[in-house]
């Protein structure tokens, strides 16, 4: 579904992504891990077109999307949620989802009918149901709890009915119990929507339990990839993490 | 706890206060006007704030002196005059609104429009519609009364008119130019309608009277420009024999101060139509030599006992020196008073206009001791204009030469024909 070929990107002479080649199969659930500064978020930024790669190709269902505008890439079916939830603070949950859905349906400039359109409401309601956000439908985004904000952020991306969904640390800043609830939700929506889902995660327990495949980035290049078991036993990975703060992480 | 309590309380008070104010604005005003029936209300839209607040202040002073005297003498049929002065801040749309409010809400029966140029045009449109008597006492722009398309039967002008100044000034300038051989002229006037038309007309008539005059440089600083250095140096580079300037008020003071630094006035003769005013001429600290100024208001022009008395009385009652605007408004007020006498206190616009049209008034500001409201175009004539040599101390002007009106009338007629105002 999503193929990265020889991606390179540097900022002011500092290479952030060095020759990354990865393949994400259609309908797969993969995790990207790596120490801080490994270039995980940069990789997401490249895929979503926030900035173009210096060289290399990004193939979405066989079509090269490298260098296209962020908006085009979104329209082609790449959705994204952010490490720090990126929301619309003054919109309620249901408003935000309906607004996102109407953008997906290319109805964002409709002037004649009142908001929300019936079709988008239905779409938004489904997402709220799926993510367990129905209970907070009327709450303003800025008043949501941290966990609900992260869920809404994912919800906004889901409203685009993406073929590929990128989640940047969906469990960041959560307590242990909340993390598991979050990741269950992610798994549920992955099953429900049958899409290619890629997430960045620090919690190894979660990664190894949930992901079908795991890619390890370090200093901007791919250190290892494979099933959780393969990666767990990969000496290079252990070394990379031991060099950092392995004790808690790879326990 | 207490702090939030008190804040809430104060908030409530503020809201309540605002509400009361609003109510007073809408309901209170007519109530007040009803309580004061019996007086003849005269509305005065003018400028009381910002850079030209002095215009409003000295205009109102000129009106007050006359109306106070009128009221002290018992008014007419027991009715006294009450002025309602409103600040339009010089914005034309505000002037129109204020004028309408003065008439409709404050029940003013007469409008004394002490606005500057463009706002006067806006007031003119209100008068066209409502038809009360209006005297424009400050707008010098010729077209206001000269252009028949703008004519309004009940509107008059008691201000000097640009074209009159230009012809009189051109004549005077040509005489000096011939005597001193001033051939190359430069101009420095504010870049807006008054400055442009005034300057063009002045130079046109200077050339008319002395064919040797030619304009070698023009400069157009913006109105209220704080710094004139680039204009001064440009004039310096022009190396002209003489200069004409229609700058006025604070702008003129700043220009002279700054030009002095470059010794501009040592190099050329200067003609400044608006230098003669108190508030300008007495503010210039380093006084240039060889400067000719137009007559605005001066206590020695005319050098009569009446004028000196008028000046003394004005300063005593108004606590500031009179300006050109003061006499223009004083004349306007005199016309109103005389017309009221003629109509026996009837303020009807048509009747008042009939009375004022062509009226000749005994006035110290007239060349022959009278001024006349010319019937053909509702504008003031026979008032004293002219030029003199500026001085740095009292009386600030010497050798004042009043312009003769016959040549002005003649050339004014030609000018009107050229503009297509008359056939």
């Amino acid at each position: 579904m999503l193929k990265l070929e020889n991606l390179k990107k540097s900022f002011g002479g500092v290479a952030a992504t060095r020759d990354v080649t990865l393949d994400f199969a259609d309908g797969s659930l993969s995790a990207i891990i790596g120490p801080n500064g490994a270039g995980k978020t940069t990789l997401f930024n490249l895929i979503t077109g926030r900035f173009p790669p210096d060289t290399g190709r990004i193939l979405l269902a066989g079509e090269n999307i490298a260098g296209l505008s962020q908006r085009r890439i979104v329209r082609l079916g790449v959705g994204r949620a952010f490490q720090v939830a990126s929301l619309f603070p003054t919109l309620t949950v249901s408003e935000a989802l309906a607004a996102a859905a109407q953008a997906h349906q290319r109805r964002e400039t409709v002037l004649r009918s009142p908001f929300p359109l019936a079709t988008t409401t239905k779409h938004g309601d489904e997402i709220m149901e799926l993510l367990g956000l129905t209970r907070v439908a009327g709450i303003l985004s800025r008043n949501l709890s941290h966990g609900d904000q992260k869920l809404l952020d994912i919800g906004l991306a889901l409203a685009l009915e993406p073929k590929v969904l990128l989640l940047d640390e969906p469990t960041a800043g959560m307590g242990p119990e909340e993390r598991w609830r979050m990741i269950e939700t992610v798994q549920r929506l992955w099953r429900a929507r049958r899409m290619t889902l890629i997430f960045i995660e620090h919690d190894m327990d979660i990664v190894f339990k949930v992901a079908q495949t795991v890619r390890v980035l370090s200093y901007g290049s791919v250190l290892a990839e494979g099933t959780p078991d393969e990666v767990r036993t990969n000496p290079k990975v252990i070394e990379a993490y031991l060099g950092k703060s392995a004790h808690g992480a790879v326990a | 706890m207490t702090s939030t309590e008190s804040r809430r309380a104060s908030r409530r008070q503020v809201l309540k206060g605002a509400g009361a104010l609003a109510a007073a604005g809408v309901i209170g005003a007519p109530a007040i006007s009803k309580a004061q029936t019996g007086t003849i209300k005269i509305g005065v839209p003018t400028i009381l704030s910002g850079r030209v607040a002095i215009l409003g202040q000295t205009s109102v002073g000129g009106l007050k002196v006359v109306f106070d005297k009128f009221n002290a003498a018992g008014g007419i049929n027991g009715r006294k005059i009450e002025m309602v002065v409103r600040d339009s801040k010089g914005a034309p749309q505000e002037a129109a609104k204020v004028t309408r409010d003065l008439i409709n809400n404050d029940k003013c029966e007469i409008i004394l429009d002490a606005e500057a140029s463009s706002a006067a045009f806006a007031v003119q449109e209100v008068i066209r519609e409502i038809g009360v008597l209006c005297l424009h006492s400050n707008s010098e722009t010729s077209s206001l009364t000269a252009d028949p398309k703008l004519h309004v039967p009940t509107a008059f002008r008691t201000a000097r008119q640009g074209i009159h100044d230009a012809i009189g000034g051109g004549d005077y300038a040509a005489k000096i130019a011939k005597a001193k051989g001033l051939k190359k002229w430069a101009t420095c006037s504010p870049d807006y309608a008054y400055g442009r038309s005034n300057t063009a007309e002045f130079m046109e008539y200077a050339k008319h009277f002395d064919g040797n005059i030619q304009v070698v440089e023009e400069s157009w600083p913006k109105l209220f420009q704080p710094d004139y250095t680039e204009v001064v140096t440009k004039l310096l580079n022009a190396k002209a024999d003489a200069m004409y300037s229609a700058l006025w008020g604070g702008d003129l003071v700043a220009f002279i101060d700054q030009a002095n630094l470059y010794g501009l006035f040592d190099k050329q003769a200067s003609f400044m139509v608006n230098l003669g005013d108190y508030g300008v001429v007495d503010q210039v600290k380093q006084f240039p030599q060889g400067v000719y100024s137009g007559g605005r208001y001066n206590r020695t022009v005319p050098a009569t006992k009446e004028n000196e008395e008028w000046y003394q009385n004005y300063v005593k009652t108004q606590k500031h020196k009179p300006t050109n605007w003061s006499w223009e408004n004083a004349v306007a007020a005199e016309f109103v008073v005389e017309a009221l006498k003629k109509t026996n206190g009837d303020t009807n616009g048509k009747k008042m206009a009939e009375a004022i049209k062509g009226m000749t008034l005994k006035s110290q500001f007239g060349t022959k001791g009278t001024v006349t409201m010319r019937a053909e175009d509702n504008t003031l004539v026979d008032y004293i204009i002219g030029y003199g040599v500026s001085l740095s101390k009292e009386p600030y002007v010497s050798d004042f030469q009043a312009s003769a009106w016959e040549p002005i009338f003649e050339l004014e007629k030609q000018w009107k024909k050229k503009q297509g105002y008359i056939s």
Partner: protein
Amino acid sequence: MDLDALLRCVGTTSCVVTQLTSGMIIGMLLFLIASGVTLIFGVLNVINFAHGSLYMIGAYAAWTFYQLTGSYFVSALGAAVAVGMLGVLFERVLMSKVYGSNVLMQLLVCYAVVLISDDLIKIIWGPVPLSMGMPPEFRLPPIRFMGGVIPPFYLFMILAAMAIGLLLWLVIVRTRFGSVVRAAAINGPMVSALGIRVNLYYAAVFGIGSALAGAAGALAAPVRSLTPGMGFSILIESFIVTVIGGMGSIVGAFVASIIIGLTRSFGSIGFPLFVDGVMFLIMALVLIFKPSGLFGRPHR
């Protein structure tokens, strides 16, 4: 349009020297005002729309001190100090109350201050334009230099403005005060977390910025007429300078002031009717192609 005249001027040294200095005079006074605006914006992230009023008060204060003392230097210094203190007061009593709120609320407070100060000036000093007159020590014939003409007072004005600008720059770049201020500009809460009382620094910066406006007013007083509302016309020009130079950059304000000064002085010869238009055009072009200004860092 009279580009021939401009070419002729550029061809003669006398004209070039005269216009260059005239551009510098306009530019340097503008710089004093704009540097205050840019300093306050850079550190406090507040656009002080009342800066023109501080300039006006500086000029009036200098006028009064001059009437009282008869010494121009004492009055100029007095005006700068007085306006500086007024600025601190303004910041503490009014502006600091609206730091957290909407930028437009700050604008409204400034607008109120502009209105109030204009009217107070009218009440205290009257609506008649005042002129201080040239102090006797500067009543000298203009200096002739390479055929150009330079009034001694203007020479003093340029040098004084440059000296103040240099001093300001040194204070910001070289002193501990300056380094705290620069740090606060980048991250106020962080500096505050280090145990430094940022509020005091904010007040000080506002005071310095105001004192600069006051000094500009005092320098302008001998040559410009004092009227209520005189701060109005200078305000827009100082914003043009601030934007062109880059909001928050003192060096930028310096360069942009000279650009505007020269545009005025040479523009009055080459395109006299479109000088203002050209200034706004320059501002528009800078904003379109380099929104952060010639020397500015991108806005937070």
